[in-house]
């Protein structure tokens, strides 16, 4: 296991607002990290710092490089798709591939052509003639054809229909991910990527609320659905969040044995989305 991203006390401020507030974390190779947070939580800023697109305070190293100062070297090993990093509308697909081929030492034209052959995208089309889903397919094909160590996806499927979204993630797993490459991904549609992730990091107000691998979430977090007098008994055990569903109370606990709770009602591991909401709401209380 190699450390791909090492961040220590990283902050980024814009004037009076602090977008990223003193965060520290490590990402190992071969992981698929979900970076989850509400709008304006600082996810995109943090990713930009990792990509060397913005400078930051603190110590940040990606693949052993300083992302802001050594962006060119870094970009040989990193790819990213962001909903804001759109492909230029005037370019033809073939020109785009020619260009990336001529400037990217780790790009395989052959592989990109193979991947595109499985889609409806024509080499002679201009990007502006493609649907939004096809543009994302094109972008993913290019990136998959780059032998990169780290892939950063910032809301890659925003605005796509469900079929494109499902295809996107299955292509990502089948064509790109090989167990050694590393992926950092942010999305609002957490449910769709829940099964891909090996790690999750919750970020809120520029701070990391939770950083854990998915397997240990099961050991740490329990969701109890209780009703009647059991609710009071369960509350005594100190849940960090509580919500109501169909007249029953759902209480979320951290670091408690399941057996202790199962007497009060149904017990399960919370979804990442539910856990996220619980964590963020719990923190704001």
């Amino acid at each position, binding site marked *: 296991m190699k450390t791909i991203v090492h961040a220590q006390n990283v902050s980024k401020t*814009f004037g009076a607002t602090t977008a990223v507030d003193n965060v520290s974390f490590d990402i190992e190779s071969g992981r698929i990290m979900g970076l989850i947070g509400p709008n304006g939580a600082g996810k995109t800023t943090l990713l*930009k710092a990792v*990509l060397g*697109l*913005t*400078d930051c305070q603190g110590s940040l190293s990606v693949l052993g490089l300083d992302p802001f100062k050594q*962006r*060119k*070297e*870094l*970009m*040989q090993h*990193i*790819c*990213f798709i*962001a909903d*804001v*990093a*759109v*492909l*230029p*509308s*005037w*370019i*033809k697909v073939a*020109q785009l591939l020619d*260009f*990336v081929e*001529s*400037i*990217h*030492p780790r790009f395989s034209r052959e592989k990109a052509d193979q991947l595109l052959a499985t889609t409806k995208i024509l080499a002679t089309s201009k990007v502006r003639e493609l649907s939004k889903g096809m543009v994302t397919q094109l*972008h993913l094909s290019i990136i998959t054809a780059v032998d990169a160590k780290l892939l950063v996806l910032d809301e890659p499927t925003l605005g796509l229909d469900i079929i494109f979204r499902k295809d996107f993630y299955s292509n990502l797993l089948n064509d790109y991910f090989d167990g050694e490459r590393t992926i950092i991904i942010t999305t609002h549609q957490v449910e769709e990527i829940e099964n891909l992730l090996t790690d999750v990091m919750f970020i809120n107000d520029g701070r990391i609320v939770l950083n854990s691998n998915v397997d240990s979430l099961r050991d740490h977090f329990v969701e109890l659905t209780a009703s009647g007098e059991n609710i009071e008994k369960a509350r005594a055990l100190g849940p960090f969040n509580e919500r109501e569903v169909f007249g029953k109370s759902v209480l979320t606990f951290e670091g408690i044995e399941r057996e202790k709770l199962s007497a009060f009602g149904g017990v399960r591991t919370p979804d990442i989305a539910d856990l996220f909401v619980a964590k963020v709401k719990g923190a704001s209380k």
Partner: protein
Amino acid sequence: MIGNQLALIRRELWEHRSLYVVPCVVAIVIVLVEITGQTAVSAFGKHIDMALLGATNIGVNERAAVISALMAVMSSLFVIEMWILTIFYSLDSLYAERKDKSILFWRSLPITDAETVISKLLTALVVIPLITLAVIAVTHLLVLLITSIWVGMRGANAWHLIWDAVPLVDNWAATFILLLALAIWLSPFVGWFLLVSSYTRRSPLLMAMLPIILLPMLERSILKSTLLFDALFVRSGKIPIYKDVDLEGLFDEKMFQIASADGISIVSMLDVGGFLASPGLWAGIIVCGLFTTAAIYVRRFRGES
């Protein structure tokens, strides 16, 4: 590094097709005007034939002078077109990628901001003049060819009248030197346009032109001096590349005196050494370098937007 530059410049030509389309349109217009003109004057059959006879009987140097003047007029139309194109290109070059939001895609590739901005500077200062030169040469050939056919149809000897006399290579060499020299001489403007293009959030043309027009006016009314005016406008008009030739004389009767003395050669009227040694040139290059560096930094540090 050089490979990247070639790829980046090719990219500029894909994005800005106007860089070669516009000169071609000007060429087509010139050729059409020429054909129309020749058809129109053919109505004065007798006078034309007399003129052609006269042209046959003057010396080869005089004919060369007349044809060179004609070629120079065509070239100067292209120079005007080229500078309009250069202004619009350089103002758009770093603005369009922000407007269509593709900048983050370009920056996701292993290219430095310096390489990207320099490719745009090279496109403006070298590629555009080279394209213009190529189109000028083709236009010259087309116009001379069409004239030859027209002259031939009237029974005159086109080889003797035109091709034997015309100093094509000298003309093109001089055009080449002048286009590049002019580009380097005016490069501070290109640097300024690149900076505005990388910085402004809207209407780059307005943002670029306002300071150029307003600042000298302010200087004049507040400081009562004309330093900026001189630096911006007086300098621009006085490119120190011509030898001490009476250029205005070329357009009156002295043209024939100059021409008959030692044959017409525009290259011999240019003082490339003197141009390269002139402090004004290097001051301009430094100003261009400063603006370009600023443009690189703006592109690099503007992670916020």
